[in-house]
């Protein structure tokens, strides 16, 4: 009824291979983009941007990055927080070192630097597998955070050990610093998220993505049929870290403005991003968005419900939040291991046939 492919003919291979081959899907996607780019910036206020939209967009990038590594290539990483810190500090050093260069270039370069660091920490993955690797990535997490804490060159010898984003503009509109308008903050994050999602989606559909999935499903078998594990694993680490680095840079420069590394990029960040992709769906770009949305909205929702409506103390609500997140993880792993993305897929299948059962 709502979701039909009847009458939707592809006349070229190009049409057949596009990201959204079904017309309804494609128009829905354009509609979402139109709302996100043309409507939302004009109606958002400070609260919405700071509490929900910007964290959602930034976490989505991080989740896409981790999903490439864990969901597509099967290498579990608990070092996301550390790699986000690399992105943030690289961005800070670039911003303060080359003040005349545009911030967008800085953020992309920060992603590149993170990709290099990620590749370095990805090297052991050639020997180590499964949760041995997960634990090995903890080394990255703790070592990187420690390094940014102790080596004062990284925070320009400031007394507090914090890094503060100086004011930078894009097309004359400030996007970092104290004078940022909510819509500008939203727009820059949206542009990056959109670009990252498109790139990630197309990478995972191509040769590279297929070699990642082959490695994920069975690395020895993949090697036998001619997938180079060195190339597949290291590109997964590099590209994943690139996205994670961009999200870390945005998180610092655009969203928070001032960062103390141990607090912001600690082990908890790694877990949250991992949870996002578990709940959202491993191996799905849409799932990264869904998981990020759920885990960003959930604490806000619980706080509204618990603290503002029922008047409970904040610490109890925070504990309930832990319980709910834990329960969600377990429920999803037990009931729907492929996450929200799979629910979405099932819903689409049903809609295609509705109102008939088969």
């Amino acid at each position: 009824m709502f979701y039909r492919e009847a009458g939707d003919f592809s006349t070229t291979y190009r049409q057949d291979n596009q990201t959204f081959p079904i017309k309804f899907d494609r128009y829905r996607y354009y509609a979402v983009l139109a709302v996100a780019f043309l409507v939302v910036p004009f109606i958002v206020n400070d609260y919405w941007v700071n509490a929900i939209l910007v964290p959602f967009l930034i976490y989505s990038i991080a989740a896409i990055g981790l999903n490439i590594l864990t969901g597509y290539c099967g290498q579990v990483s608990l070092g996301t927080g550390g790699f986000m810190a690399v992105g943030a500090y690289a961005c800070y050093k670039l911003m303060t070192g080359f003040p005349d260069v545009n911030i967008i270039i800085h953020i992309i370069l920060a992603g590149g630097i993170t990709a290099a660091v990620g590749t370095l920490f990805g090297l052991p993955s050639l020997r180590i597998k499964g949760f041995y690797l997960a634990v090995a990535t903890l080394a990255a997490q703790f070592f990187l955070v420690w390094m940014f804490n102790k080596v004062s060159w990284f925070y320009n010898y400031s007394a507090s050990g914090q890094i503060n984003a100086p004011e930078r503009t894009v097309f004359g509109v400030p996007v970092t610093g104290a004078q940022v308008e909510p819509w500008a903050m939203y727009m820059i994050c949206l542009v990056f998220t959109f670009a990252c999602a498109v790139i990630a989606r197309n990478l995972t559909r191509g040769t590279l993505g297929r070699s990642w999935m082959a490695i994920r499903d069975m690395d020895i078998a993949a090697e036998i049929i001619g997938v180079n594990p060195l190339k597949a694993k290291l590109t997964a680490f590099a590209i994943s870290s690139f996205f994670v680095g961009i999200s870390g840079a945005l998180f610092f420069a655009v969203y928070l403005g001032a960062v103390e590394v141990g607090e912001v990029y600690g082990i908890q960040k790694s877990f949250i991003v991992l949870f996002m992709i578990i709940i959202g769906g491993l191996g799905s770009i849409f799932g990264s968005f869904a998981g990020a949305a759920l885990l960003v909205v959930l604490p806000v929702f619980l706080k509204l419900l618990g603290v503002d409506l029922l008047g409970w103390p904040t610490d109890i609500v925070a504990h309930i939040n832990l319980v709910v997140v834990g329960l969600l993880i377990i429920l999803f792993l037990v009931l729907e291991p492929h996450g929200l993305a799979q629910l979405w897929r099932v819903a689409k299948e049903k809609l295609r046939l509705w109102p008939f059962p088969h």
Partner: protein
Amino acid sequence: MPEQLLFAMEVTLNGLMAGVMYALVALGFVLIFKASGIFNFAQGVMALFAAMTFVGIQNGQVPFSHLINAIFGTKIHYFGWELHSMVAILLTVVVMIAMAWAVQRFIFRHLVGQEPIILFMATIGLAYLLEGIADLMWGAEIKKLDVCLTDQTCLPQGINLAIDETTFNLFGYGFFIDNLDITATIVAIILVAILVAFSQYTKQGRAMRAVADDHQAALSVGVSLNYIWILVWSVAGFVALVAGIMWGAKSGVQFSLSLIALKALPVLMLGGFTSIPGAIVGGLIIGVGEKLFEFAIGPMIGGATENWFAYVLALIFLVFRPQGLFGEKIIERV
């Protein structure tokens, strides 16, 4: 003897003691991993949960009192009793067994046959869940933990004067060794002895080993997997309680206790996930290694190297020997 060498000796001794504490946590991991192939990330949170439950029961705290007060507007906090430590330990063991049953019944029974990495992530979820429940039940503030047999004899704390004196007479420099660490070492030795005796000489222990060896073979000779898994989680819960009490007595019962679990991971990687002696040897290596590194190189590069040294050591080690020191050789087939 030169002073530096004496310092290094003292640091080594303290490192050995710290290693024992890590090994205590690592033991629980190994038990569960051997019997069910689950890499239990929640072991550290189980230690926290056990320690908080112990303190709560001992002080007669009302479970979920904060939540109840928030919902009903009441003001209840304590039952108003002080339980004897041994009674509190027994009651906590009961709670841990109940938890083991619940974990098995509601989570891992539904995940049988899933990939190991899915099970691992489920235990991360379990860690969050348990932590939230522990905080809701007993409150998140830092608590003091005392274990006393009678009013006078409690867990000893502070510097061991005998060792201080002997070493002073021998070398002219008194070693600082915490009494609590010595107790922890003794407790750990007893615990390992009990575990070994249990798994070698009792019917249940043998069944546990059978399951660890081969699930299906054990099932076919009539071992109930469900029962064994509950048993294993209970034993791991008991080990967590011991670790929780020791760590709690050392640094207070607080959230950071659950982070020691993370420290136990490199220990496991060194020792191998499937070996109890490996867990102990790995713990000792990590304990001594990180203390000596901090002592020798730490001051040069800014200190606090204990945060990452263990992981980096394990990482470098793994590159050369992926199955750990005592682990079984990993054989993979298509």
